[in-house]
């Protein structure tokens, strides 16, 4: 028969252990917070630089940005960040951190750079879970696949041809995967549409 003390001791130990471990995790989280934030900033800056030539604008994209919500066009109910490039105060480009919600294995995070004139400057995939070897061809086998968006706009090609060739569109899919390219093309087109509908607002809203 266990006495009360016998049962209490392990439980107290467990509670103390939980308290100490929580404190340690909080401590580590605090120590690493600024470095992790810095890493994320550097990571996104690197990708922004690859999209929009730094020589074409003179502001800081990371601070000159807004968060918008547009579940229909930007692919997520969460706020989506838009970075704004300006030269001497005049709008140059907007980079929309859109989501392609219908990837083969979950959402695909994109950076869609649109010039002031509504033409695409470039598209980058920044995070995805697509099947290695097939759906991730845009970063291995077919690294230039994303280049074909450059210069395109909402009217070039016309709406019904903004899809993969198999669906009667203008864009090649890459070998071995149709769902991934289809999802990316759709998300890019939707981002363009969002831009066209909101271009004034995108550049006028105060940074937040």
């Amino acid at each position, binding site marked *: 028969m266990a006495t009360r003390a016998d049962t209490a001791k392990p439980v107290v130990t467990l509670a103390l252990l939980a308290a100490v471990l929580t404190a*340690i995790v909080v401590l580590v989280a605090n120590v690493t917070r600024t470095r*992790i934030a810095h890493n994320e900033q550097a990571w996104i800056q690197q990708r922004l630089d690859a999209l929009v030539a730094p020589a074409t604008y003179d502001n800081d994209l990371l601070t000159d940005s807004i968060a918008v919500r547009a579940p229909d066009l930007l692919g997520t109910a969460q706020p989506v960040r838009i970075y704004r490039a300006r030269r001497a105060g005049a709008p140059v480009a907007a980079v929309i951190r859109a989501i392609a919600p219908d990837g083969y294995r979950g959402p695909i995070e994109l950076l869609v750079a649109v010039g002031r004139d509504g033409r695409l400057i470039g598209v980058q995939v920044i995070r995805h879970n697509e099947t290695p070897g097939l759906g991730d061809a845009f970063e291995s086998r077919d690294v230039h696949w994303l280049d074909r968006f450059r210069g395109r706009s909402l009217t070039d090609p016309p709406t019904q041809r903004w899809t993969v060739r198999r669906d009667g569109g203008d864009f090649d899919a890459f*070998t071995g995967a149709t769902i991934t390219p289809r999802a990316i093309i759709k998300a890019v087109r939707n981002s363009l549409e969002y831009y066209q509908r909101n271009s004034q607002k995108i550049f006028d809203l105060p940074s937040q």
Partner: protein
Amino acid sequence: MSASPPRVFGSTAQLIAVCPLLAMSDTVADALGIGAAVLVVVPLAAVLLALLRSRLSDETALAATMLTVAALVACVELLMRAWLSELRTALNLFLPLIVSNLVIVQYLQARHETAGRAFGGSLRIAVGIAITLLPLGIARELVGRGSLLHDAHTLLGSWAGWSEVGVFRVDMGFMLAMLPPGAFIAFGLLLAARNWLLHRRS
């Protein structure tokens, strides 16, 4: 010390426990990263739990194991995000997942009484896991991508950028090797090789 795990938890359970770890070995860099995390977490947790063992009952020991391993993995993840940020993007989904496996490994170690023996025993296991991951990473990357040390700079710093070795060029790669089942096939081959060697020696 009474709480030796039931017999059914033999080496087979230990083998199964490491399987999800093995699935993450699709490149050499990933295998090294996971191996490093295991090497840090397992011995630390073992020592901590051995010190507390006399103050815990059989019922609370498992909960304590879980708490300890989860907290340590959380810390390792944060530290990796701070200092190995690019590799961590690759391991993004999986690091918290190793908790469940390590809890089993750790629980199996509960029979070691002293901190010293627990440390020794678990270090042996951790090194074993890390060493097993490496050939799997090498084999899968070689077969799946035709390269070695792809993305190794994310682990070893930019000076390792030159170290990727393109062994042969593949168009599609041998995909199966890169997908999780590839790890199990490779692991099976590795076990077969081990058994064959042991058999030959005896």
